[in-house]
Protein backbone atom coordinates (compact mmCIF):
# COMPACT_ATOMS: atom_id res chain seq x y z
CA UNK A 1 0.00 0.00 0.00
CA UNK A 2 1.36 3.36 -0.96
CA UNK A 3 1.75 6.09 1.60
CA UNK A 4 0.25 8.89 -0.41
CA UNK A 5 -3.21 7.42 -0.46
CA UNK A 6 -5.67 8.75 2.11
CA UNK A 7 -7.55 5.50 2.10
CA UNK A 8 -6.27 2.20 0.83
CA UNK A 9 -8.53 -0.83 0.90
CA UNK A 10 -7.70 -4.42 -0.05
CA UNK A 11 -10.24 -7.22 -0.18
CA UNK A 12 -12.26 -5.72 2.67
CA UNK A 13 -15.16 -7.96 3.62
CA UNK A 14 -17.96 -7.84 6.14
CA UNK A 15 -20.21 -10.79 6.75
CA UNK A 16 -23.27 -10.87 9.01
CA UNK A 17 -23.86 -14.58 9.61
CA UNK A 18 -24.32 -15.95 6.07
CA UNK A 19 -25.01 -12.56 4.48
CA UNK A 20 -22.03 -10.88 2.87
CA UNK A 21 -22.74 -7.17 3.10
CA UNK A 22 -19.39 -6.10 1.70
CA UNK A 23 -17.63 -8.54 -0.56
CA UNK A 24 -13.85 -8.15 -0.91
CA UNK A 25 -13.74 -4.56 -2.09
CA UNK A 26 -10.44 -3.05 -3.18
CA UNK A 27 -9.80 0.62 -3.96
CA UNK A 28 -7.59 3.59 -3.17
CA UNK A 29 -8.57 7.16 -2.44
CA UNK A 30 -6.03 9.87 -3.18
CA UNK A 31 -5.33 12.63 -0.76
CA UNK A 32 -7.49 15.71 -1.25
CA UNK A 33 -9.79 13.86 -3.58
CA UNK A 34 -13.59 13.99 -3.56
CA UNK A 35 -14.45 10.34 -3.78
CA UNK A 36 -18.05 9.44 -4.61
CA UNK A 37 -19.16 6.13 -3.16
CA UNK A 38 -22.30 5.16 -5.04
CA UNK A 39 -24.61 2.19 -4.94
CA UNK A 40 -28.24 1.22 -4.70
CA UNK A 41 -29.93 0.92 -1.33
CA UNK A 42 -28.57 -2.12 0.46
CA UNK A 43 -25.52 -2.41 -1.80
CA UNK A 44 -23.25 -2.18 1.26
CA UNK A 45 -22.08 1.45 1.18
CA UNK A 46 -22.86 2.31 4.78
CA UNK A 47 -21.38 -0.95 6.08
CA UNK A 48 -18.16 -0.28 4.16
CA UNK A 49 -18.02 3.26 5.46
CA UNK A 50 -18.65 2.18 9.03
CA UNK A 51 -15.75 -0.22 8.80
CA UNK A 52 -13.44 2.51 7.52
CA UNK A 53 -14.50 4.78 10.41
CA UNK A 54 -13.71 2.15 12.99
CA UNK A 55 -17.33 1.65 13.99
CA UNK A 56 -17.52 -1.89 12.73
CA UNK A 57 -14.96 -4.72 12.63
CA UNK A 58 -14.16 -6.10 9.17
CA UNK A 59 -14.56 -9.84 8.77
CA UNK A 60 -11.45 -9.97 6.59
CA UNK A 61 -9.27 -7.85 4.33
CA UNK A 62 -6.90 -4.97 4.90
CA UNK A 63 -7.37 -1.24 5.07
CA UNK A 64 -5.24 1.80 5.80
CA UNK A 65 -7.01 5.02 6.66
CA UNK A 66 -5.06 8.26 7.06
CA UNK A 67 -1.91 6.16 7.18
CA UNK A 68 -3.07 3.94 10.04
CA UNK A 69 -3.98 0.30 10.02
CA UNK A 70 -7.68 -0.31 10.56
CA UNK A 71 -7.09 -3.20 12.94
CA UNK A 72 -4.25 -1.87 15.04
CA UNK A 73 -4.77 1.87 15.17
CA UNK A 74 -8.51 2.42 14.97
CA UNK A 75 -8.34 5.01 17.74
CA UNK A 76 -5.60 6.93 15.91
CA UNK A 77 -7.69 6.86 12.77
CA UNK A 78 -10.52 8.44 14.73
CA UNK A 79 -8.40 11.49 15.47
CA UNK A 80 -7.79 12.02 11.76
CA UNK A 81 -11.28 11.55 10.42
CA UNK A 82 -14.62 13.26 10.57
CA UNK A 83 -17.86 11.37 10.13
CA UNK A 84 -21.34 12.48 9.29
CA UNK A 85 -23.81 9.64 9.53
CA UNK A 86 -27.05 9.14 7.69
CA UNK A 87 -28.89 9.86 10.89
CA UNK A 88 -28.65 13.41 12.12
CA UNK A 89 -26.35 13.17 15.07
CA UNK A 90 -26.00 16.49 16.77
CA UNK A 91 -27.77 16.93 20.10
CA UNK A 92 -31.19 18.37 19.40
CA UNK A 93 -31.63 19.55 22.96
CA UNK A 94 -28.43 21.58 22.90
CA UNK A 95 -27.94 24.90 21.17
CA UNK A 96 -25.70 25.33 18.15
CA UNK A 97 -23.04 26.88 20.32
CA UNK A 98 -23.21 24.05 22.83
CA UNK A 99 -22.99 21.40 20.12
CA UNK A 100 -19.92 23.02 18.63
CA UNK A 101 -18.36 23.31 22.06
CA UNK A 102 -19.11 19.69 22.87
CA UNK A 103 -17.73 18.15 19.69
CA UNK A 104 -14.83 20.56 19.59
CA UNK A 105 -14.09 19.72 23.20
CA UNK A 106 -14.06 15.97 22.80
CA UNK A 107 -11.70 16.30 19.86
CA UNK A 108 -9.37 18.11 22.24
CA UNK A 109 -9.76 21.70 21.06
CA UNK A 110 -8.92 24.37 23.62
CA UNK A 111 -11.47 26.93 24.79
CA UNK A 112 -9.81 29.53 22.64
CA UNK A 113 -9.83 27.32 19.55
CA UNK A 114 -13.47 26.47 20.14
CA UNK A 115 -14.29 30.16 20.36
CA UNK A 116 -12.61 31.08 17.08
CA UNK A 117 -13.99 27.96 15.39
CA UNK A 118 -17.47 28.84 16.51
CA UNK A 119 -17.14 32.33 15.11
CA UNK A 120 -15.82 31.31 11.69
CA UNK A 121 -18.24 28.43 11.41
CA UNK A 122 -21.26 30.47 12.33
CA UNK A 123 -20.19 33.21 9.98
CA UNK A 124 -19.65 30.76 7.16
CA UNK A 125 -23.09 29.20 7.64
CA UNK A 126 -24.84 32.50 8.39
CA UNK A 127 -26.10 31.15 11.67
CA UNK A 128 -25.28 34.21 13.80
CA UNK A 129 -28.88 34.70 14.84
CA UNK A 130 -29.47 31.05 15.62
CA UNK A 131 -26.32 30.51 17.66
CA UNK A 132 -28.13 30.18 20.96
CA UNK A 133 -31.16 28.36 19.63
CA UNK A 134 -31.75 24.67 20.17
CA UNK A 135 -30.66 22.60 17.21
CA UNK A 136 -34.06 20.94 16.96
CA UNK A 137 -35.57 24.25 15.90
CA UNK A 138 -33.42 24.41 12.74
CA UNK A 139 -34.67 23.34 9.31
CA UNK A 140 -33.16 20.10 7.96
CA UNK A 141 -30.91 21.77 5.40
CA UNK A 142 -29.26 23.92 8.03
CA UNK A 143 -28.91 20.99 10.36
CA UNK A 144 -27.06 19.07 7.66
CA UNK A 145 -24.70 21.95 6.94
CA UNK A 146 -24.10 22.33 10.64
CA UNK A 147 -23.44 18.60 10.99
CA UNK A 148 -20.88 18.79 8.24
CA UNK A 149 -19.13 21.73 9.83
CA UNK A 150 -19.09 19.98 13.19
CA UNK A 151 -17.66 16.84 11.56
CA UNK A 152 -14.92 19.12 10.18
CA UNK A 153 -14.29 20.94 13.45
CA UNK A 154 -10.97 19.26 14.23
CA UNK A 155 -9.72 19.71 10.66
CA UNK A 156 -9.60 15.99 9.87
CA UNK A 157 -7.52 14.60 7.03
CA UNK A 158 -10.49 12.66 5.76
CA UNK A 159 -14.19 13.27 6.14
CA UNK A 160 -16.77 10.54 5.62
CA UNK A 161 -20.20 11.72 4.57
CA UNK A 162 -23.05 9.19 4.48
CA UNK A 163 -25.82 10.56 2.26
CA UNK A 164 -25.32 14.05 3.61
CA UNK A 165 -27.89 15.65 1.33
CA UNK A 166 -30.73 13.14 1.69
CA UNK A 167 -34.05 14.96 1.83
CA UNK A 168 -32.49 18.36 1.36
CA UNK A 169 -33.74 20.95 -1.18
CA UNK A 170 -31.68 21.67 -4.35
CA UNK A 171 -30.54 25.10 -3.21
CA UNK A 172 -29.22 23.80 0.09
CA UNK A 173 -27.65 20.87 -1.71
CA UNK A 174 -25.71 23.24 -3.88
CA UNK A 175 -24.61 25.19 -0.81
CA UNK A 176 -23.62 21.95 0.81
CA UNK A 177 -21.42 21.06 -2.13
CA UNK A 178 -19.78 24.46 -1.88
CA UNK A 179 -18.78 23.48 1.63
CA UNK A 180 -17.44 20.17 0.38
CA UNK A 181 -15.38 21.86 -2.33
CA UNK A 182 -14.01 24.30 0.18
CA UNK A 183 -12.95 21.46 2.45
CA UNK A 184 -11.33 19.61 -0.44
CA UNK A 185 -9.51 22.72 -1.60
CA UNK A 186 -7.93 22.90 1.84
CA UNK A 187 -6.60 19.39 1.43
CA UNK A 188 -9.27 17.33 3.16
CA UNK A 189 -10.12 14.09 1.47
CA UNK A 190 -13.88 13.75 1.07
CA UNK A 191 -15.47 10.31 0.98
CA UNK A 192 -19.13 10.76 0.17
CA UNK A 193 -22.09 8.51 -0.58
CA UNK A 194 -25.08 9.85 -2.44
CA UNK A 195 -28.11 8.88 -4.46
CA UNK A 196 -28.13 12.11 -6.47
CA UNK A 197 -26.43 11.55 -9.79
CA UNK A 198 -25.85 15.24 -10.36
CA UNK A 199 -23.76 15.12 -7.20
CA UNK A 200 -21.86 12.16 -8.57
CA UNK A 201 -20.78 14.42 -11.44
CA UNK A 202 -19.20 16.78 -8.91
CA UNK A 203 -16.86 14.06 -7.62
CA UNK A 204 -13.28 13.60 -8.80
CA UNK A 205 -13.75 9.87 -8.95
CA UNK A 206 -16.73 7.64 -8.44
CA UNK A 207 -17.10 4.01 -7.44
CA UNK A 208 -20.34 2.14 -7.88
CA UNK A 209 -21.19 -0.73 -5.56
CA UNK A 210 -23.50 -3.51 -6.61
CA UNK A 211 -24.36 -6.34 -4.22
CA UNK A 212 -21.43 -5.70 -1.93
CA UNK A 213 -18.84 -5.47 -4.74
CA UNK A 214 -17.36 -2.48 -6.50
CA UNK A 215 -18.36 -2.87 -10.13
CA UNK A 216 -16.97 0.34 -11.52
CA UNK A 217 -14.44 2.95 -10.42
CA UNK A 218 -13.25 5.92 -12.43
CA UNK A 219 -13.77 9.60 -13.10
CA UNK A 220 -17.35 10.46 -14.08
CA UNK A 221 -16.15 11.32 -17.57
CA UNK A 222 -14.37 7.98 -18.09
CA UNK A 223 -17.34 6.05 -16.70
CA UNK A 224 -19.76 7.70 -19.10
CA UNK A 225 -17.42 6.92 -21.98
CA UNK A 226 -16.93 3.29 -20.91
CA UNK A 227 -20.61 2.62 -20.50
CA UNK A 228 -21.45 4.70 -23.50
CA UNK A 229 -23.93 6.65 -21.46
CA UNK A 230 -24.92 10.33 -21.69
CA UNK A 231 -25.11 10.81 -17.93
CA UNK A 232 -24.00 9.30 -14.64
CA UNK A 233 -27.59 8.38 -14.03
CA UNK A 234 -27.52 6.12 -17.09
CA UNK A 235 -24.25 4.54 -15.91
CA UNK A 236 -25.74 3.90 -12.51
CA UNK A 237 -28.93 2.39 -13.87
CA UNK A 238 -27.00 0.06 -16.17
CA UNK A 239 -24.98 -1.22 -13.24
CA UNK A 240 -27.67 -1.27 -10.61
CA UNK A 241 -29.96 -3.33 -12.85
CA UNK A 242 -27.55 -6.23 -12.54
CA UNK A 243 -28.15 -6.34 -8.82
CA UNK A 244 -29.70 -9.57 -7.58
CA UNK A 245 -29.94 -8.53 -3.99
CA UNK A 246 -33.19 -7.04 -2.83
CA UNK A 247 -33.43 -4.77 0.15
Amino acid at each position, binding site marked *: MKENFAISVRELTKRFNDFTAVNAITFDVKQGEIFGFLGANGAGKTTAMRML*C*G*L*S*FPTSGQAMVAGYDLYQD*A*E*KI*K*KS*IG*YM*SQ*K*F*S*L*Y*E*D*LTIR*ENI*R*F*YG*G*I*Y*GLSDHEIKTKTETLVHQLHLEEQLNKLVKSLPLGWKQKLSFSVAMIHQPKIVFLDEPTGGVDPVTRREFWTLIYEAASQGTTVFVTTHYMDEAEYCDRVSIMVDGRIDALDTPLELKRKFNAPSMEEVFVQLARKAKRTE
Partner: protein
Amino acid sequence: MRILRILLEKEFRQIFRDPAILRIIFMMPMIQLLVLPMAADYEIKNVNVAVVDLDHSTYSIQLVNKVKASGYFNLVDYNESFEKSLEYVEHDQADIVLQIPASFEKDLVREDKATLFMALNAINGVKANLGGAYLRSIINDFNREVRLDWVQLPRVNPQPTFQISSINWFNPLMNYKIFMVPGILVVLVTMVGSFLTALNIVKEKEVGTIEQINVTPIHKYQFILGKLIPFWVLGLTTLSIGLTLEWIFYGIVPVGNLSTIYIFAAVYLLGVLGLGLLISTYAQTQQQAMLISFFLIMIFILLGGLYTSIESMPVWAQVFTKFNPVSYFIEVIRMVVLKGSTLYDIRFHLLAAAAFAVVLNSWAIVNYKKRS
Protein backbone atom coordinates in the same frame (compact mmCIF):
# COMPACT_ATOMS: atom_id res chain seq x y z
CA MET B 1 -9.74 15.61 32.46
CA ARG B 2 -10.79 18.29 30.06
CA ILE B 3 -12.71 15.83 27.96
CA LEU B 4 -14.50 14.56 31.05
CA ARG B 5 -15.40 18.12 31.95
CA ILE B 6 -16.82 18.69 28.47
CA LEU B 7 -18.87 15.51 28.75
CA LEU B 8 -20.21 16.41 32.18
CA GLU B 9 -21.04 19.91 31.08
CA LYS B 10 -23.12 18.56 28.23
CA GLU B 11 -24.80 15.91 30.36
CA PHE B 12 -25.86 18.36 33.06
CA ARG B 13 -27.09 20.83 30.45
CA GLN B 14 -29.29 18.14 28.94
CA ILE B 15 -30.59 16.98 32.30
CA PHE B 16 -31.54 20.45 33.42
CA ARG B 17 -33.10 21.17 30.08
CA ASP B 18 -35.34 18.12 30.21
CA PRO B 19 -38.46 18.89 32.24
CA ALA B 20 -39.38 15.20 32.37
CA ILE B 21 -36.18 14.26 34.17
CA LEU B 22 -36.51 17.11 36.61
CA ARG B 23 -40.05 16.08 37.31
CA ILE B 24 -38.95 12.51 37.92
CA ILE B 25 -36.22 13.62 40.28
CA PHE B 26 -38.29 16.04 42.31
CA MET B 27 -41.89 14.91 41.98
CA MET B 28 -41.35 11.19 42.22
CA PRO B 29 -39.93 11.30 45.75
CA MET B 30 -42.67 13.70 46.83
CA ILE B 31 -45.49 11.51 45.63
CA GLN B 32 -43.98 8.19 46.53
CA LEU B 33 -42.95 9.24 49.99
CA LEU B 34 -46.11 11.15 50.84
CA VAL B 35 -48.72 8.89 49.35
CA LEU B 36 -47.37 5.34 49.34
CA PRO B 37 -46.71 5.00 53.07
CA MET B 38 -50.37 5.72 53.73
CA ALA B 39 -51.32 2.77 51.61
CA ALA B 40 -48.50 0.44 52.58
CA ASP B 41 -50.00 -0.03 56.01
CA TYR B 42 -49.41 -3.25 57.90
CA GLU B 43 -52.06 -2.61 60.48
CA ILE B 44 -55.40 -4.19 59.81
CA LYS B 45 -58.21 -1.79 60.47
CA ASN B 46 -61.81 -1.77 59.42
CA VAL B 47 -62.34 -5.50 59.75
CA ASN B 48 -66.00 -6.07 59.01
CA VAL B 49 -67.79 -8.28 61.48
CA ALA B 50 -71.28 -9.70 61.32
CA VAL B 51 -72.49 -10.86 64.70
CA VAL B 52 -75.06 -13.61 65.05
CA ASP B 53 -76.46 -13.20 68.54
CA LEU B 54 -78.74 -16.05 69.47
CA ASP B 55 -78.53 -15.23 73.15
CA HIS B 56 -79.50 -11.58 73.51
CA SER B 57 -78.26 -11.53 77.05
CA THR B 58 -76.44 -8.85 79.02
CA TYR B 59 -73.18 -10.67 78.44
CA SER B 60 -73.61 -11.08 74.74
CA ILE B 61 -74.46 -7.41 74.36
CA GLN B 62 -71.47 -6.45 76.48
CA LEU B 63 -69.22 -8.57 74.29
CA VAL B 64 -70.55 -7.00 71.11
CA ASN B 65 -70.04 -3.52 72.53
CA LYS B 66 -66.50 -4.37 73.46
CA VAL B 67 -65.77 -5.54 69.92
CA LYS B 68 -67.29 -2.37 68.54
CA ALA B 69 -65.35 -0.16 70.92
CA SER B 70 -61.98 -1.68 70.05
CA GLY B 71 -61.66 0.50 66.96
CA TYR B 72 -60.53 -2.32 64.69
CA PHE B 73 -63.93 -3.62 63.73
CA ASN B 74 -66.97 -2.40 61.87
CA LEU B 75 -70.18 -4.06 62.86
CA VAL B 76 -71.83 -4.87 59.57
CA ASP B 77 -74.89 -6.48 60.97
CA TYR B 78 -76.27 -7.81 64.20
CA ASN B 79 -78.80 -10.56 63.63
CA GLU B 80 -80.00 -14.02 64.57
CA SER B 81 -79.22 -15.97 61.45
CA PHE B 82 -75.89 -17.53 60.63
CA GLU B 83 -77.00 -18.04 57.01
CA LYS B 84 -77.75 -14.39 56.64
CA SER B 85 -74.40 -13.41 58.12
CA LEU B 86 -72.62 -15.84 55.87
CA GLU B 87 -74.20 -14.08 52.94
CA TYR B 88 -72.31 -10.96 53.94
CA VAL B 89 -69.12 -12.95 53.74
CA GLU B 90 -70.12 -14.32 50.35
CA HIS B 91 -70.71 -10.81 49.08
CA ASP B 92 -67.44 -9.70 50.56
CA GLN B 93 -69.16 -7.32 52.94
CA ALA B 94 -68.03 -9.11 56.06
CA ASP B 95 -64.66 -10.61 56.95
CA ILE B 96 -65.68 -12.41 60.11
CA VAL B 97 -68.88 -13.93 61.40
CA LEU B 98 -69.04 -14.19 65.17
CA GLN B 99 -71.76 -16.45 66.46
CA ILE B 100 -72.90 -16.23 70.06
CA PRO B 101 -74.85 -19.39 70.94
CA ALA B 102 -78.27 -19.23 72.62
CA SER B 103 -76.99 -20.57 75.88
CA PHE B 104 -73.99 -18.26 76.13
CA GLU B 105 -74.84 -16.50 79.39
CA LYS B 106 -76.38 -19.54 80.96
CA ASP B 107 -73.36 -21.70 80.23
CA LEU B 108 -71.02 -19.02 81.40
CA VAL B 109 -72.71 -18.60 84.73
CA ARG B 110 -73.67 -22.17 85.43
CA GLU B 111 -70.93 -24.20 83.89
CA ASP B 112 -68.20 -21.62 84.05
CA LYS B 113 -67.46 -21.96 80.36
CA ALA B 114 -69.07 -21.06 77.08
CA THR B 115 -68.26 -21.58 73.42
CA LEU B 116 -68.23 -18.93 70.70
CA PHE B 117 -68.00 -19.63 67.01
CA MET B 118 -65.96 -17.58 64.58
CA ALA B 119 -66.02 -17.96 60.78
CA LEU B 120 -63.29 -16.14 58.85
CA ASN B 121 -63.21 -15.06 55.24
CA ALA B 122 -59.72 -16.29 54.44
CA ILE B 123 -59.37 -15.01 50.88
CA ASN B 124 -57.03 -12.37 52.23
CA GLY B 125 -55.02 -14.57 54.55
CA VAL B 126 -53.29 -11.73 56.33
CA LYS B 127 -56.51 -9.94 57.12
CA ALA B 128 -58.23 -13.13 58.25
CA ASN B 129 -55.30 -14.05 60.44
CA LEU B 130 -54.85 -10.69 62.06
CA GLY B 131 -58.57 -9.94 62.30
CA GLY B 132 -59.15 -13.31 63.90
CA ALA B 133 -56.30 -12.75 66.32
CA TYR B 134 -57.59 -9.30 67.30
CA LEU B 135 -61.06 -10.67 67.87
CA ARG B 136 -59.68 -13.56 69.89
CA SER B 137 -57.69 -11.24 72.10
CA ILE B 138 -60.71 -9.03 72.66
CA ILE B 139 -62.73 -12.05 73.65
CA ASN B 140 -59.95 -13.18 75.97
CA ASP B 141 -59.96 -9.78 77.56
CA PHE B 142 -63.67 -9.95 77.98
CA ASN B 143 -63.29 -13.39 79.45
CA ARG B 144 -60.87 -12.10 82.08
CA GLU B 145 -63.13 -9.22 82.99
CA VAL B 146 -66.06 -11.52 83.43
CA ARG B 147 -64.07 -13.72 85.72
CA LEU B 148 -62.88 -10.81 87.79
CA ASP B 149 -66.29 -9.26 88.07
CA TRP B 150 -68.56 -12.18 88.60
CA VAL B 151 -66.77 -15.28 89.47
CA GLN B 152 -65.59 -15.35 93.02
CA LEU B 153 -61.94 -15.87 92.88
CA PRO B 154 -60.34 -17.94 95.55
CA ARG B 155 -57.50 -16.24 97.34
CA VAL B 156 -55.04 -18.42 95.60
CA ASN B 157 -55.80 -18.84 91.94
CA PRO B 158 -56.05 -22.56 91.28
CA GLN B 159 -55.17 -22.02 87.63
CA PRO B 160 -51.79 -20.35 87.34
CA THR B 161 -51.65 -17.98 84.38
CA PHE B 162 -48.75 -16.35 82.63
CA GLN B 163 -48.66 -12.65 82.29
CA ILE B 164 -46.42 -11.44 79.50
CA SER B 165 -45.22 -7.88 79.43
CA SER B 166 -43.31 -6.66 76.42
CA ILE B 167 -41.39 -3.60 75.42
CA ASN B 168 -40.90 -2.44 71.83
CA TRP B 169 -37.35 -1.54 71.09
CA PHE B 170 -36.28 0.89 68.33
CA ASN B 171 -39.82 1.71 67.27
CA PRO B 172 -41.70 1.97 70.55
CA LEU B 173 -45.04 2.91 69.07
CA MET B 174 -44.65 0.32 66.33
CA ASN B 175 -45.22 3.08 63.82
CA TYR B 176 -45.10 1.29 60.48
CA LYS B 177 -44.22 4.54 58.70
CA ILE B 178 -40.83 4.77 60.34
CA PHE B 179 -40.26 1.31 58.96
CA MET B 180 -41.73 1.78 55.47
CA VAL B 181 -40.72 5.28 54.47
CA PRO B 182 -36.94 4.78 54.48
CA GLY B 183 -37.42 1.55 52.52
CA ILE B 184 -39.48 3.31 49.87
CA LEU B 185 -36.77 5.93 49.61
CA VAL B 186 -34.25 3.20 48.83
CA VAL B 187 -36.36 1.93 45.95
CA LEU B 188 -36.64 5.46 44.68
CA VAL B 189 -32.92 6.11 44.76
CA THR B 190 -32.38 2.80 43.00
CA MET B 191 -34.79 3.68 40.23
CA VAL B 192 -33.26 7.09 39.64
CA GLY B 193 -29.76 5.63 39.66
CA SER B 194 -30.24 2.69 37.38
CA PHE B 195 -33.13 3.34 35.08
CA LEU B 196 -32.47 6.97 34.31
CA THR B 197 -28.90 6.02 33.44
CA ALA B 198 -30.02 3.18 31.22
CA LEU B 199 -32.64 5.27 29.45
CA ASN B 200 -30.23 8.14 28.96
CA ILE B 201 -27.62 6.00 27.21
CA VAL B 202 -30.13 4.03 25.19
CA LYS B 203 -31.67 7.29 24.03
CA GLU B 204 -28.30 8.25 22.56
CA LYS B 205 -28.25 4.90 20.79
CA GLU B 206 -31.72 5.46 19.41
CA VAL B 207 -31.09 8.99 18.23
CA GLY B 208 -27.73 8.00 16.77
CA THR B 209 -25.55 10.41 18.70
CA ILE B 210 -23.68 7.54 20.32
CA GLU B 211 -22.31 6.62 16.91
CA GLN B 212 -21.03 10.13 16.49
CA ILE B 213 -19.31 9.76 19.86
CA ASN B 214 -17.92 6.34 18.97
CA VAL B 215 -16.26 7.81 15.91
CA THR B 216 -14.35 10.30 18.05
CA PRO B 217 -11.08 9.39 19.80
CA ILE B 218 -12.78 9.63 23.19
CA HIS B 219 -12.00 6.73 25.53
CA LYS B 220 -14.55 4.26 26.74
CA TYR B 221 -13.86 5.14 30.39
CA GLN B 222 -14.31 8.85 29.69
CA PHE B 223 -17.66 8.29 28.10
CA ILE B 224 -18.78 6.00 30.91
CA LEU B 225 -17.61 8.33 33.66
CA GLY B 226 -19.31 11.19 31.87
CA LYS B 227 -22.56 9.26 32.10
CA LEU B 228 -22.15 7.87 35.60
CA ILE B 229 -21.10 10.97 37.50
CA PRO B 230 -24.23 13.05 36.71
CA PHE B 231 -26.55 10.25 37.73
CA TRP B 232 -24.51 9.56 40.83
CA VAL B 233 -25.08 13.17 41.80
CA LEU B 234 -28.77 12.90 40.93
CA GLY B 235 -29.13 9.75 43.02
CA LEU B 236 -27.63 11.46 46.05
CA THR B 237 -29.86 14.48 45.39
CA THR B 238 -32.93 12.27 45.42
CA LEU B 239 -31.72 10.70 48.65
CA SER B 240 -31.30 14.14 50.22
CA ILE B 241 -34.72 15.30 49.08
CA GLY B 242 -36.21 12.08 50.40
CA LEU B 243 -34.52 12.36 53.78
CA THR B 244 -35.69 15.96 54.08
CA LEU B 245 -39.27 15.02 53.23
CA GLU B 246 -39.16 12.21 55.77
CA TRP B 247 -38.06 14.65 58.40
CA ILE B 248 -40.62 17.31 57.52
CA PHE B 249 -43.65 15.08 57.05
CA TYR B 250 -43.01 12.14 59.32
CA GLY B 251 -40.58 13.59 61.80
CA ILE B 252 -38.19 10.77 61.00
CA VAL B 253 -34.71 11.71 62.09
CA PRO B 254 -32.14 8.93 61.80
CA VAL B 255 -31.02 7.75 65.20
CA GLY B 256 -27.65 6.95 63.66
CA ASN B 257 -25.28 9.24 61.86
CA LEU B 258 -26.49 10.71 58.58
CA SER B 259 -23.02 10.32 57.12
CA THR B 260 -23.31 6.54 57.53
CA ILE B 261 -26.29 6.59 55.20
CA TYR B 262 -24.49 8.80 52.71
CA ILE B 263 -21.31 6.75 52.73
CA PHE B 264 -23.27 3.62 52.07
CA ALA B 265 -25.43 5.34 49.43
CA ALA B 266 -22.37 6.66 47.64
CA VAL B 267 -20.98 3.15 47.21
CA TYR B 268 -24.39 1.59 46.61
CA LEU B 269 -25.17 4.06 43.84
CA LEU B 270 -22.02 3.04 41.98
CA GLY B 271 -23.43 -0.47 41.75
CA VAL B 272 -26.85 0.74 40.76
CA LEU B 273 -25.38 2.96 38.06
CA GLY B 274 -23.38 -0.02 36.84
CA LEU B 275 -26.65 -1.88 36.51
CA GLY B 276 -28.11 0.96 34.45
CA LEU B 277 -25.04 0.94 32.26
CA LEU B 278 -25.31 -2.81 31.85
CA ILE B 279 -28.95 -2.58 30.81
CA SER B 280 -28.01 0.06 28.26
CA THR B 281 -25.39 -2.18 26.68
CA TYR B 282 -28.01 -4.86 26.06
CA ALA B 283 -31.04 -2.76 25.16
CA GLN B 284 -31.25 -1.25 21.70
CA THR B 285 -34.33 0.89 22.26
CA GLN B 286 -35.73 2.83 25.17
CA GLN B 287 -38.71 0.51 25.13
CA GLN B 288 -36.50 -2.51 25.72
CA ALA B 289 -34.67 -0.69 28.48
CA MET B 290 -37.97 0.19 30.14
CA LEU B 291 -39.24 -3.38 30.05
CA ILE B 292 -36.02 -4.78 31.47
CA SER B 293 -36.21 -2.13 34.16
CA PHE B 294 -39.79 -3.04 35.07
CA PHE B 295 -38.84 -6.67 35.33
CA LEU B 296 -35.93 -5.86 37.61
CA ILE B 297 -37.72 -3.39 39.85
CA MET B 298 -40.44 -5.96 40.59
CA ILE B 299 -37.79 -8.42 41.72
CA PHE B 300 -35.96 -5.75 43.66
CA ILE B 301 -39.05 -4.74 45.59
CA LEU B 302 -40.58 -8.14 46.20
CA LEU B 303 -37.29 -9.84 47.01
CA GLY B 304 -35.83 -6.86 48.81
CA GLY B 305 -37.56 -7.08 52.14
CA LEU B 306 -39.47 -3.84 51.65
CA TYR B 307 -42.92 -5.25 52.32
CA THR B 308 -42.20 -8.72 53.57
CA SER B 309 -39.58 -9.86 55.96
CA ILE B 310 -36.69 -11.67 54.27
CA GLU B 311 -36.32 -14.00 57.26
CA SER B 312 -39.76 -15.45 56.65
CA MET B 313 -39.14 -16.15 52.97
CA PRO B 314 -38.39 -19.69 51.83
CA VAL B 315 -34.69 -20.47 51.75
CA TRP B 316 -34.36 -20.29 47.95
CA ALA B 317 -35.90 -16.82 47.97
CA GLN B 318 -33.54 -15.77 50.74
CA VAL B 319 -30.65 -16.82 48.52
CA PHE B 320 -32.05 -14.59 45.79
CA THR B 321 -32.20 -11.61 48.10
CA LYS B 322 -28.43 -11.92 48.55
CA PHE B 323 -28.09 -10.98 44.88
CA ASN B 324 -30.45 -8.07 45.20
CA PRO B 325 -28.56 -4.86 45.97
CA VAL B 326 -31.77 -3.20 47.13
CA SER B 327 -32.13 -5.63 50.04
CA TYR B 328 -28.81 -4.44 51.48
CA PHE B 329 -29.67 -0.78 51.34
CA ILE B 330 -33.13 -1.33 52.80
CA GLU B 331 -31.56 -3.18 55.69
CA VAL B 332 -28.87 -0.53 56.16
CA ILE B 333 -31.21 2.43 56.07
CA ARG B 334 -33.53 0.76 58.59
CA MET B 335 -30.61 -0.12 60.80
CA VAL B 336 -29.28 3.42 60.78
CA VAL B 337 -32.60 5.25 60.95
CA LEU B 338 -34.22 3.07 63.63
CA LYS B 339 -31.38 1.48 65.55
CA GLY B 340 -28.60 3.99 65.10
CA SER B 341 -26.19 1.47 63.63
CA THR B 342 -22.71 2.70 62.88
CA LEU B 343 -20.42 2.24 59.91
CA TYR B 344 -18.83 -0.66 61.76
CA ASP B 345 -22.19 -2.41 62.10
CA ILE B 346 -22.91 -2.17 58.41
CA ARG B 347 -19.40 -3.08 57.23
CA PHE B 348 -20.51 -6.30 55.55
CA HIS B 349 -23.35 -4.53 53.79
CA LEU B 350 -20.87 -1.96 52.58
CA LEU B 351 -18.61 -4.70 51.33
CA ALA B 352 -21.51 -6.29 49.45
CA ALA B 353 -22.42 -2.93 47.90
CA ALA B 354 -18.82 -2.46 46.80
CA ALA B 355 -18.83 -5.95 45.28
CA PHE B 356 -21.97 -5.11 43.29
CA ALA B 357 -20.30 -1.93 42.07
CA VAL B 358 -17.19 -3.76 40.89
CA VAL B 359 -18.99 -6.67 39.25
CA LEU B 360 -21.75 -4.72 37.51
CA ASN B 361 -19.47 -1.98 36.24
CA SER B 362 -16.82 -4.37 34.95
CA TRP B 363 -19.47 -6.41 33.21
CA ALA B 364 -20.91 -3.28 31.64
CA ILE B 365 -17.55 -1.92 30.56
CA VAL B 366 -16.57 -5.20 28.93
CA ASN B 367 -19.91 -5.26 27.19
CA TYR B 368 -19.82 -1.66 26.00
CA LYS B 369 -18.22 -1.59 22.61
CA LYS B 370 -17.21 1.37 20.57
CA ARG B 371 -16.90 -0.94 17.61
CA SER B 372 -19.31 -3.70 16.64
